[in-house]
C-alpha cells in the first residue's frame, strides 16, 4: 500500500511479469503520474476490447495492471506476447470518465488530524481546506478495501507523511490523506492515513451489482466541504448518482 512519490523513471517498454501461474502484471513504470496512469488505463481498455480467450479479469494500479487468467486455456508465454503487444500500442482511446463532487465534513472529531496536517504544510486548517477543495483529483486505482479509491496527486504543498503508528480503528466514511494520496474508507479498519473529514457518500454498496463502487479508475473527484448538519442530513439518504456532475 506504499504510495510514495517515486523517482522519475525513463519510459521503458512495458514488462510482463509473472504473478504465479494464473496472473501476470504488466508493468509500465514505478511512478505515480498522470501520463503513466493514462497508459495503464489505455492498456486496460485495449485488453477489454481484445477479448483474449482465457483472460478472466484485470485491475489497474498506479503504474501497472494485473491480469488474471486461466492457465488451462492460455499459456503464460503466449499470453505475455499478446499483453506486450497491447501494452506497446493499445490502439484504443482511454474511455471517458465521470466527474464527481463529493461532500465531506471537516468539523470536530471527523477531522482529527486536520490541524496537524495543516501545520505540517505551514498553513492554517482553513487555508489547507481551501486549497484542498479546489483540487480535481483522479482515481488512480482501487485496493486495500472494496471501493477504497486512491485519489491523487496532491501537490507537495498539501502532502504529509502517513502516521508513524497506524490507528487501530478508522471509522467508515473517513476522508484521509497520506503522502501524495487522498482516500475515503468504505469500511472501518486500522489505518495510518491522516483524517481530514468524513463523507456521507455510499462508497461501496454490495446491493448495487452493476456499479458497487462509487468511483472507478480514471474518474475525477472534487471534494465539497459541508457542515455537520448537512452531513447528517445526507447520511444514509444519498445515492451514488447524487454526486456525479459530469459523465
Amino acid at each position, binding site marked *: 500500500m506504499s504510495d510514495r512519490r517515486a523517482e522519475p523513471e525513463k519510459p521503458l517498454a512495458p514488462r510482463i511479469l509473472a*504473478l*504465479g*501461474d494464473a496472473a501476470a502484471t504488466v508493468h509500465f513504470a514505478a511512478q505515480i503520474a498522470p501520463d503513466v496512469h493514462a497508459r495503464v488505463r489505455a492498456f486496460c481498455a485495449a485488453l477489454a476490447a481484445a477479448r483474449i480467450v482465457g483472460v478472466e*479479469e484485470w485491475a489497474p494500479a498506479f*503504474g501497472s495492471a*494485473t491480469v488474471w487468467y486461466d492457465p488451462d486455456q492460455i499459456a503464460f508465454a503466449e499470453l505475455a506476447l499478446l499483453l506486450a503487444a497491447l501494452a506497446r500500442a493499445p490502439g484504443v482511446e482511454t474511455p471517458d470518465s465521470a466527474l464527481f463532487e463529493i461532500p465531506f465534513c471537516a468539523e470536530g472529531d471527523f477531522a482529527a488530524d486536520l490541524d496537524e496536517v495543516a501545520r505540517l504544510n505551514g498553513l492554517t486548517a482553513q487555508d489547507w481546506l481551501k486549497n484542498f477543495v479546489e483540487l480535481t483529483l483522479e482515481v488512480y486505482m482501487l485496493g486495500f478495501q472494496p471501493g477504497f479509491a486512491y485519489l491523487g496527486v496532491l501537490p507537495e504543498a498539501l502532502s504529509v507523511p502517513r502516521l508513524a503508528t497506524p490507528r487501530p480503528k478508522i471509522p467508515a466514511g473517513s476522508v484521509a490523506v497520506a503522502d501524495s494520496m487522498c482516500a475515503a474508507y468504505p*469500511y472501518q479498519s486500522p489505518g495510518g492515513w491522516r483524517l481530514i473529514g468524513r463523507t456521507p457518500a455510499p462508497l461501496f454498496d454490495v446491493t448495487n451489482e452493476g456499479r458497487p463502487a462509487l468511483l472507478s479508475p480514471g474518474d475525477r473527484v472534487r471534494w465539497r466541504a459541508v457542515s455537520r448538519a448537512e452531513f447528517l442530513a445526507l447520511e444514509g439518504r444519498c445515492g451514488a448518482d447524487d454526486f456525479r456532475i459530469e459523465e
Partner: protein
Amino acid sequence: MSARLKILRPGVGVTVQDFGRRNFRALGVALSGALDPVLLAAANGLTGAPKGAAGLEILLAAPELRASEGAAQIGLAGDLVGMIERPDGERQQISSWRGVVLREGDTLTLKLGRGLAYLGFSGGLDLPEILGSRSTFLRAGFGGVEGRCLRAGDALACGAAEGGDVFAPPLIHEAGPIRFILGPQDDHFSPESLQKFVQARWRVGPDSDRMGLRLIGPRLAHTMKGGNIVSDGATPGAIQVPGDGQPIVLRADCQTSGGYAKIGCVISADLPRLAHLAPGDVLSFIEVDHEKAATARRRAREMFDGWRARISPTGWLDERKLWTENLIGGATSGENEGFR
C-alpha cells in the same frame, strides 16, 4: 425440496465459503472463497451438491448442528471426527470422507483435528449471492451469513438429501516443499537473499489468518530498491517481503493490491496446501517454472477426479476396512511441512 440446519454451537472461525468472488478485483474486492478449494469440492462431492456450491469452512474448531427440518446430506472433508445422535438416543460415530444423511432431529457433533476442514451440503448452502459469490468476506462484512462467522442459533438452508450414505478414501495433498514462481519483484532481492529464501525452513507465525501467513526465519535483505514498491496487483499465494525481511504469504482474503516487494508467488496447485498451515508449522519453498506449474495443476486435477470416481455407497464391511486401513495409515504427510 429443502432442509434446514440449526447451529447449536458455532465452533471457531467457521464461515460459509464457495470458490471465490471473481470479476470485482478492479474495485478492490478480495477473491475470498475456500482456502482449500479441493477439499470443499470433495465435501460437495460427498453430498452430490452441484459444482461451485457453498459449504462451511472450519478453520479453528468445528460446529455442532441439528437437522431441524427435512433430511440433509452432509459431506465431511479434512481431519474431522464426530458423532451423530438420533432423536431416539441412537448414536453413530462418523469421520471424514463420508457423506451421511442427517434426518430431521439428528444432531451432528464434530471435532477438528489437524489443518482445516469442510462440510458440504446436499444442493449446497442456500444463501443469496453477493457480487456473484456466497463466500464470507469478514473484513467488509458481506457474503455468507451476514458477512460473519457462524453463531449459535443461525439456521442454514440447503437442498434435501437425495442419495444415501457414501464413503471415499482420504484425499491427501502432495507433500514436499511449496512450489512458487519467481517474481514479480525478485529484482528487489540479492542472489544471496533468493538463495536464503529457498534454503530456509520457515515457521508460520502466530498472527496468521485468512488474509495471510506470516513466516519467521532468516532475514531476507533487499537490494538498494528496498522493500516498498509503488502498489501493484496482489493475489492469493503472493509472497510479500516487507522491510523486516520476514515473508508474508497471502491467502484467499488478501487485499487486491500491495506495496511490498513480492519475491515470488505460490503456484495454484499448491494453494490448497497453504490452507492447512497453522502457527508453529514449518515449510520450505522450491522454485518452479510455468511448465512445471501446469504439470502440477494437471496432476492435482487427475488426483481429484480419481478420488471422486472412488466415492461409493457405504457397506458395513467396507466401512470397517476403510477405517482400519486407509484413514489411520494415511492421514498425515510427516513432520516436514505440517500439511496434509
